[in-house]
């Protein structure tokens, strides 16, 4: 189903929007600012527009079509109720700067979600405004830094495990810290002893993912927290994998100081092909005073008030400041709240349990055909990790991944975490059925066996996708980032097959 670019569809003189009002000439005051000619962009009529995007959409894989077993990039079912709720005019059609008495229901959504996030994590405060997970990490690190500075305690190093998401070191660096590695034990967890050795007055804190990116629970988390605190540092927990323990474990019980929560990973907000996200950050009592503005408080009459710059001096004197315009990702809050209400405290436990059950089922169903580096150490959490160790020379993790596309599945996360060679990180999530997992396992087994048999056809996979392997080097060598009409380019779409198959 080939589809030309909008720029190739002869959009001159068309219109997909009608107007009823004749504006006349612009006012004379702005004449000197007025552009000489329209922005050079084509328009399509509405039928063409619907068709263009509908056809394009069909070149995408999506959770609505099949599983997305992307370890550490959780993609679970996105309930349609949440979409309907987020579109209620009372949420979707209100302005962030309306007088506060006219948006008490919106404030109540934020307050309720915040309260439940604190209860689920047993933490003292939550910053709701971060716009995505990495933004939440930044929030947590800034709060840590603000707290340390408030103590007058300049520290310059943040320790991060090698298995961490790239956002962890990037965030620490972005906030002005030097980054050092935390070594791991053979069983895929933080080496507590080595960590303790490194702690000292220059270490601002650690960033630890728990459950970690090898899919394992950090058994020593509480001991780590205690050690870091004892050395004057603070503990950031990357909450990307909170979905594995929600309702079962409260991270606050393990002594952490800050943790972001990706609402799409744990609370099912849609990922939309790359965002928007939302990354609320729960904070310990030690960090709570430094939380960013804006945040909600109730005044003496019980009305909800957003603490912004005006009232920050009174109500947030130690806040490290604002992280973004307005109050956060409201559209994600309504969805996440609807999700939590739907599951309830009982359902959320079941979410974690089923996610872990599904991952262990995958682990135990594949460990005989693929190398599973930590399988002997016990159960995994929400994701199962394999390596390319028992693939023959020349056969790679990438070949398995691309082969999976031809089997009708999105590939797993590959080559991450970096600590495992040719890593394949598989996260089914709780919203996959057993029948679906059995199909996936069947495909994986078949691919593993083909790879072991040296089946060279895997090298040319995918064959049944909208595109074969892409030349990524060419894209980076001389980047073409916008469309330019080629001389004589006809702008004709190529003939295509019909889209159903």
């Amino acid at each position, binding site marked *: 189903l080939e589809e030309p670019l909008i720029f190739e569809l002869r959009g001159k003189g068309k219109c997909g929007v009608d107007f009823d009002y004749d504006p006349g000439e612009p006012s004379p005051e702005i004449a000197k600012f007025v552009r000489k000619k329209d922005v050079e962009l084509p328009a399509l009529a509405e039928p063409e527009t619907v068709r263009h995007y509908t056809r394009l959409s069909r070149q995408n894989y999506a959770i609505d079509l099949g599983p997305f077993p992307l370890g550490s990039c959780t993609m679970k079912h996105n309930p349609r109720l949440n979409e309907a709720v987020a579109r209620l005019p009372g949420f979707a059609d209100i302005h962030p700067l309306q007088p506060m008495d006219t948006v008490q229901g919106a404030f109540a959504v934020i307050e309720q979600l915040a309260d439940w996030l604190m209860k689920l994590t047993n933490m003292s405060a939550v910053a709701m405004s971060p716009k995505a997970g990495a933004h939440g990490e930044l929030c947590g690190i800034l709060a840590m830094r603000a707290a340390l500075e408030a103590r007058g305690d300049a520290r310059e190093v943040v320790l991060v495990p090698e298995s961490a998401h790239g956002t962890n070191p*990037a965030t620490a660096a972005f906030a002005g810290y030097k980054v050092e590695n935390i070594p791991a034990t053979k069983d895929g967890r933080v080496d507590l002893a080595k960590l303790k050795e490194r702690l000292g007055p220059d270490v601002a804190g650690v960033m630890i993912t728990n459950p970690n990116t090898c899919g394992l629970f950090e058994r020593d988390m509480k001991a780590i927290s205690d050690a870091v605190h004892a050395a004057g540092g603070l503990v950031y927990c990357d909450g990307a994998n909170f979905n594995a323990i929600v309702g079962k474990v409260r991270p606050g019980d393990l002594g952490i100081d800050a943790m972001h929560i990706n609402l799409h990973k744990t609370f099912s907000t849609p990922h939309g092909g790359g965002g928007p996200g939302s990354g609320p950050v729960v904070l310990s009592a030690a960090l709570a005073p430094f939380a960013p503005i804006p945040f909600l408080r109730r005044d003496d009459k019980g009305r909800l008030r957003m603490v912004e710059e005006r009232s920050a001096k009174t109500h947030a004197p130690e806040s490290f400041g604002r992280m973004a*315009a307005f109050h956060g990702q409201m559209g994600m809050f309504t969805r996440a709240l609807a999700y939590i209400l739907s599951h309830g405290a009982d359902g959320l436990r079941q979410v974690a349990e089923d996610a872990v059950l599904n991952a262990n089922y995958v682990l135990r169903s594949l460990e005989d055909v693929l190398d599973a580096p930590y399988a002997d150490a016990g159960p995994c959490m929400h994701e199962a990790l394999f390596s390319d160790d028992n693939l023959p020379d020349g056969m790679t993790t990438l070949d398995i991944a691309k082969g999976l596309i031809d089997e009708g599945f999105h590939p797993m996360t590959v080559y991450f975490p970096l600590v495992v060679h040719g890593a394949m990180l598989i996260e089914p999530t709780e919203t996959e059925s*057993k029948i679906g997992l059995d199909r996936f396992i069947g495909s994986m087994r078949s691919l593993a066996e083909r790879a072991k048999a040296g089946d060279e056809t895997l090298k040319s996979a995918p064959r049944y996708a909208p595109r074969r392997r892409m030349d990524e080097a060419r894209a980076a060598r001389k980047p073409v980032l916008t469309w330019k009409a080629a001389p004589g380019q006809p702008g004709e779409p190529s003939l295509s097959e019909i889209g159903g198959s």
Partner: protein
Amino acid sequence: MRYLPLTETDRSAMLEKIGASDIDALFADVPAEALQKTPIAGLPLHASEMAVERHMKRLAAQNLSAADAPFFLGAGAYRHHVPATVDHIIQRGEFLTAYTPYQPEIAQGTLQVLFEFQTQVARMFGTDIANASMYDGSTACWEAIAMAGRITKKSRAVIGAIHPHYLATSQTMARFTGDTLVPVTPVLSADAGEDAVIAEIDETTSAVVVQYPDILGRIPDLQKIADAAHEKGALLITVVTEPVALGLLESPGSLGSDVVVGEGQSLGVGLNFGGPYLGLFGAREKYTRQMPGRLCGETVDADGKRGFVLTLSTREQHIRREKATSNICTNSGLCALAFSIHMTLLGGEGLGKLAAINHARAAHAAKRLGAIKGVELVNTGGFFNEFTLRLPGHDAREIAFRLTKRGILGGVSMGRLFPDHDEMGEGLLVCVTETVSDEDIGLFADALEEELA
């Protein structure tokens, strides 16, 4: 539970395959004292779709939504009519529930949209290139300042009359990165303050940041500022909070801006109480490798067919870790899609018409409101669809609040945005888009007249 497909039979069979006695055997690595034995207290138990919907509708009903009141708010978030087609398309599962397009073979839908989006943004901004979107305008603004620092190896940015939230967001980051921001606070006057900004530029200046139109609705002379900045080796970063304005006004890129950032919410996205929104980011081509955020580029597949991929990811955190240009992982993909669809429906000509209508309606309102006794129109030097009224002797916050009692959402008070500058307290920022009817303007004017009488 309706979202969970495992049955009890499935769970037993799977535990057996795993060789675990019960589910908690899989949580064996969690210290016993940390494992919750019962549902966490303080949250309700599970609920039906009907009950959840009822609860959420009750909360929604406690807000005064824009459709139910004459509506005049702007200040970085604008209410425009979004064609029904936009919401239809973004709800297609293949867009809504797709992941970041790391596997381009099965993500060409998202990738081609991003490539089209980048082209649309670049052409609108008058820049060579644009990225695949950022969180929102305010974070894009800081990212631009940081990028200017990387390019110029300097760290002092002069900030004009930009949205105070954008300034505050940048100040938060600057505090930690060691950058210096020099804000030139606006005053309630028709003069867009180019000279005051230019006066602050020196050889140590990395960037000059101005908003176009600015936070008071005034239109600054970009070329003049650009020339002054370039003379000192600084970049001009132009912030656009209302992209519809670029249907009527000359593009910032063509007026000497080196980087143009903005908030794209006006097209396709809607108000949504402030988020999710859509950060736009365009720049000169020579800065490509200093850009933050995702970039989508054209290439070919193994059969030689044209296709698109995320590219130059060596700038990014998942490859470069602590040496990345930014820690950003998520962009605002679905909002970029919405923006792009809306822009495809409009085209350049439609955007021009829409802009002209916005301007005409705002001019009409400004005339009517400016004629009220006790009201002074600040923007006598011109504006796009937003202008500031001065209400001498009044705190505009109080007036805005009293207007809501009459069912009118009558603008954003400058006192809310500039709490530290008392002289701004008399300012009321009024925005008039194509969604505002003559009747709305009349109701607002009458109410304001009565409040001030």
